[in-house]
């Protein structure tokens, strides 16, 4: 019984972590697949979402849901400006330029955030409703994490339906598969890039705000979790929407499991597993080689 209970608990906590990872990373995967852009600064959008959400809640008394929404929309709008002004100039550039440029953005964001909010992690005060435990009949689960999983699943469903069923989604898929062909069919890929970029950044902001209690919002956020976001995208397969989901679940659950069961070597296992997996499939689980 103890074993089963521990296993359930690990899977549950792992899933909550995985959902946050996925919502943040999926935009990065699409940017990589669609524009071939190595946007290492993707975590900055998640961090911005986290800071905006916590500030709106703590200092202005905005309810959690509205704060999240406002943060996501603000970040998406800012990202449109950044994409038009800066990113779009580097679409054809080499990988090194993109990496350097986005690292530069991270450095600047670290400094700006430290200047405004100071070096300490942000306090996340959950609304009354989301505290404590939620009894699901057979056992009780922490309410916040249950909420996190439920909201994320709903979001993911909406995202997948949007990509599969809408005209916009079809255009995105067409452009990922064959950009030139899509362009010659009259799809405005420039606008598509901007919209997709904004969507991905908005989602990242949402993930940052939703997960603020899991991934602590601090100035080094974009560097600290970068390797996690990259692992999700690389293991899932660049450009894929579902691959990163599977990768995030694998990563989230196994990371939680090993850190819980063998804390002394917990962090190694995950890196070694990822390295092994990419040796076996260099293009990731769902990537096209």
């Amino acid at each position, binding site marked *: 019984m103890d074993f089963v209970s521990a296993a359930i608990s690990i899977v549950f906590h792992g899933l909550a972590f995985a959902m946050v990872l996925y919502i943040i990373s999926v935009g990065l995967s699409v940017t990589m697949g669609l524009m071939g852009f190595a946007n290492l600064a993707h975590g900055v959008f998640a961090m911005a979402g986290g800071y905006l959400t916590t500030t709106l809640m703590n200092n202005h008394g905005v309810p959690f849901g509205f704060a999240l929404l406002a943060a996501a929309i603000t970040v998406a709008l800012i990202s449109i400006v950044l994409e038009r002004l800066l990113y779009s100039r580097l679409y054809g550039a080499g990988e090194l330029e993109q990496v350097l440029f986005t690292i530069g953005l991270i450095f*600047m964001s670290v*400094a700006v955030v430290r200047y405004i909010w100071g070096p300490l992690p942000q306090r996340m005060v959950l609304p009354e409703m989301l505290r404590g435990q939620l009894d699901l009949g057979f056992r009780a689960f922490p309410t916040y994490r249950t909420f996190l999983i439920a909201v994320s699943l709903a979001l993911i469903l909406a995202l997948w339906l949007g990509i599969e069923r809408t005209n916009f989604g079809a255009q995105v898929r067409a452009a990922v598969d064959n950009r030139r062909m899509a362009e010659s069919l009259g799809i405005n890929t420039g606008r598509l890039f901007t919209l997709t970029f904004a969507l991905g950044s908005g989602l990242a902001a949402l993930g940052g705000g939703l997960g603020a209690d899991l991934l602590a919002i601090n100035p080094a956020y974009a560097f600290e979790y970068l390797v996690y976001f990259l692992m999700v995208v*690389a293991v899932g397969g660049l450009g894929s929407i579902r691959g990163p989901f599977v990768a995030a679940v694998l990563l989230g659950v196994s990371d939680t499991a090993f850190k819980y069961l063998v804390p002394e070597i917990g*962090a*190694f296992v995950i890196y070694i597993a990822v390295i092994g997996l990419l*040796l076996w499939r*260099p293009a990731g689980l769902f990537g096209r080689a």
Partner: protein
Amino acid sequence: MFHRLSPDDPPVEQMVQSHKLRPLELLPWLAIVGAYFAFPEYLSLGSQILLTVVFALSLDLILGYAGIITLGHSAFFGVGAYTAGIYALHISGEPLSGLVVAALAAGLVGLASGLVILRTHGLTLLMLTLAFLFLIHEIANKAGFITGGADGLQGIAMQEIFGQFRFDMFGRTAYVYSAVVLFIVWLFARLLVHSPFGRSLTGIRENVTRMHAIGTPVRRRLVIIYTISAMIAGIAGALLTHTTQFVGLNVLSFERSGEIVIMLILGGIGRLYGAFVGAAVFMIAQDELAKADPVFWYFWIGLLLVLIVMFARGGILGLVDQARRWLRRRV
């Protein structure tokens, strides 16, 4: 791409002759010797700069010449630093054998990780360099019985070099020691990049498909240069241990990896001397500016990177080249 054949590039005859030593190449050495006499009170900063140049040179071999983008290069620097520290504590405080042991250890780690990660490319390769760095950082953190964990390795006592030159408190020996090591590394790196092997690396960077097509064993070449680069990075790490007589976990930090890339970009990649210029400019600026306002130091570094990528892709030396070409056209 940073390097592309263009009308501005030198004609073929010049490229064939490019291995010959030009008078300008003596300039850094004049500066290094001159600084020893001109700034006796800054020698410890000086030796830090010199060992950072060694580190940046090692990065230039893989990033500038072979085109391997890495954010985990401090892994090898750290392995070298820890190996030198552990060797000095438990086996012998003799520095030169310590350098050799550190280079071998770092080379071994470089070979092992190179065999794995160089099978991938692009973002995946970048992520794996990071994953390896974090892996090694974690090992150093957890294996406290040998590495000292978060406290680092303390109480390292170095013997005299050749049994003659004691590491003095003014940093004179450390400076000369670092400069001599840098000189040897530079000679070797210069020989390497102008050799057929070095030229084939540039070929791999510029057009990997063509290199495959003409029968170059691409992956083997990359693994070899990755291993060599790791050894040199390990030597730089060992120099840090020898000159500061302390090793902490920060030798394996992501910041160190990122900063060395920035220094190299700042100086100019794929030209050996970018490492000299970039490391010197960056570290002197850091020494002057960062103490006053460490937060905004990072802001300026970030802005500088963005500006370099947007406007000055060849770094400082690239700008110098442009200025010289412009002058030549005017005259």
